[in-house]
Each structure stands twice: as structure tokens, then as C-alpha cells.
């Protein structure tokens, strides 16, 4: 029992140790020029690493990513604006490096496709439900069906609450 309690605490401890070791490694470059590093992180979080594709340039361990971070750092020190740095990357690697692609003729489907699919789905669901409601409303019981239904209810012994009280004593 005590081991069971100890284990999560141990795990948390190890994780904390690991993460503090990691941040210690990064702190060195941060200390050099905090403002530059903060801008670097802000810019590179908006950019995609082309090698891993699903990681941002800020988080990627790929070699190209570290080259590009170095490049961005140089551009920041040259006094370029964020816009200019993003444009620098786009002119070389295309809109694909942007996590927020610009709205263009080629990206209309990307931006509005999900919305169109959603609206279309909701519209067809509403249409379907309405049509079904109408179909159900039309089929009122005929006199013959009504007679059969009441015969069945009578055979069960009167009001619909009866079966419930019959089952209750079993428990």
C-alpha cells in the first residue's frame, strides 16, 4: 500500500527533475539576450518546421530548424521587423511554413471548407428531421388499429402502469 502511494510521488519527482534539467540547458541562451530570444520564440512558434512538418520551428530538434532559428536570430539582431522575418521565410519555403495560412484563392477551401461542411451537415439533419416528423404526423391510427390496440391493453389488464407493479415484487 505504501509503495503504491510512493510510486506516483516518485514519478512526479523524476519528471520535475527531468524538466528542470531541460530548462537549465535552454536558460543559457536566454540569458544572452532575453528580448531577442523572446521574439525568436514568438516568431518561430508561428512557423512550421519543414523536416518534421507537424512541429513548430520553435519546438523542433531537426537540424534545419536550428539553422533557421539561428537565421531568425541574426535577422532580429539586424533590426528587422517580425513581418519582414516572416516574409523572409515565406519567400523561401512558401505559405506552407505558416501555421496560419493567408486567405487566398488557393486556400479558400482550407479556410471555409470545415464551416461549409458543418452548415451543410446541420441543414441536411434539420431537413431530414422535419421530413420525418411530417411523415410520422400523417400516420394517425385507423379505427381498426385503434380497436386492436385497446383489445391488447385490455388483455394486459387495464392501465399501462400495471406491468410495472407486476414486476416490482421480484426484487
Amino acid at each position, binding site marked *: 500500500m505504501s509503495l503504491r502511494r510512493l510510486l506516483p510521488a516518485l514519478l512526479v519527482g523524476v519528471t520535475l527533475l527531468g524538466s528542470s534539467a531541460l530548462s537549465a540547458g535552454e536558460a543559457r541562451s536566454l540569458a544572452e539576450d532575453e528580448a531577442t530570444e523572446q521574439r525568436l520564440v514568438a516568431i518561430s512558434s508561428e512557423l512550421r518546421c519543414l523536416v518534421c512538418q507537424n512541429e513548430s520551428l520553435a519546438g523542433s530538434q531537426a537540424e534545419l530548424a536550428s*539553422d533557421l532559428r539561428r537565421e531568425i536570430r541574426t535577422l532580429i539582431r539586424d533590426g528587422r521587423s517580425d513581418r519582414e522575418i516572416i516574409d523572409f521565410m515565406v519567400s523561401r519555403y512558401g*505559405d*506552407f511554413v505558416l501555421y496560419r495560412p493567408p486567405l487566398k484563392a488557393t486556400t479558400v477551401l482550407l479556410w471555409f471548407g470545415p464551416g461549409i461542411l458543418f452548415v451543410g451537415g446541420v441543414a441536411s439533419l434539420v431537413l431530414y428531421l422535419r421530413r420525418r416528423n411530417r411523415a410520422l404526423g400523417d400516420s394517425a391510427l385507423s379505427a381498426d388499429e385503434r380497436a386492436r390496440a385497446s383489445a391488447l391493453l385490455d388483455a394486459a389488464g387495464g392501465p399501462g402502469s400495471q406491468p410495472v407493479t407486476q414486476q416490482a415484487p421480484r426484487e
Partner: protein
Amino acid sequence: MNRFLWPLIAFIALVVLLAVGLGLNPREVPSPLVGKPAPAFTLPRLDAPAKTFSPQEMLGRVWLLNVWASWCVSCRHEHPVLVDLARQHAVPLVGLNYKEVRGDAAIDADKLSRDEERQQVVERAGAWLARHGNPYTLSVLDIDGRVGIDYGVYGVPETYVIDKAGIIRLKHIGPVTPEIVSGKLLPLIQEISK
């Protein structure tokens, strides 16, 4: 029957869309450089490191720029194709040797001085071409990969077709195969050489 027709058509359309999407290669990112002038650079030549080469020297000619490195496994696969292409004398082929030492994960380049790294680059690249054959009119050394960034290189090998006006007409990512040479490169080269 009619009730299921439209959902079925929508489903088939979705399957076709997804099938096409799955067939695409996510590594092939369209380059914004196609149709733009090839970025200028001046880099030392592998055969004569004291001399330099820059793309302006090729103005008036159609040429290929091929990005390679000895640590690049796919480059080894495409190399015989390039050697074959060079034998046809269809087009001058310039090699951009990309981060020969720095790009090799087996070497800790931070421990090397600039001169040591440069010397190793020349030795390794030269030895690789001596062993596998040299299809290049000349190769230039992009030791730190800075020129690679200007060309939007993100996966070696890459090949650029550059026209007489110095405009990039095609960028091919990944190894060049005989099919790509005969189906894409040679027809384009013929067309823009006129």
C-alpha cells in the same frame, strides 16, 4: 433506393477526395522560388577552393543545380542517374555540396575550427565523387548551409532547373529517377533551350 442515392454519391466523393489526398507526397512542398530569379551567391569551388563560382556566370545557358552531400543516403541512389545524365551532355550540372561536415550527424562540427571543417569538407566531398563518379561540371561548397536557406532547401537531394535568364523553372525534391529525367527534366530543358 433513391433515398440512399445522394448519401452514397456524397460518400464516394469523400472517398475519392481522401484517396487523392493520401496519394500526395506531403514532403513535396511547392516552392515559391519557381518563376523567380535564382538567389545569388558566391561560394568556393570544390575542385579549386581558392576560386569561387556564382550563378551569374551561367547567364545565357540552361543549367541544373543539384544539392548533394556525402552523408545523404538518397543522393547515393540518385547519383548513377546524374552520372548518366552528364554522359548525354544535355545540360551543365552544378553541384551544391550542402553542409558536408555539419550535416553529418556522426560528426560534432562544433569541435572543429573553421579551417579544419573546410578541409574536411573538401576531403570528404572529393573522396565521395572519386568513388561514385563525378557528374558535375563543378561543385560549390555551402559549408554552413546558408545558401541552402536562400534556395529553400529542406531535404537533400534537391534539383533546380534554371533558364537562360537565371530564372528557376522547376524544383524537384528528393532523388532524381530515370523517369523524372526523361519525363520532366529533359522535356523542360529542351523547351527552354530553344
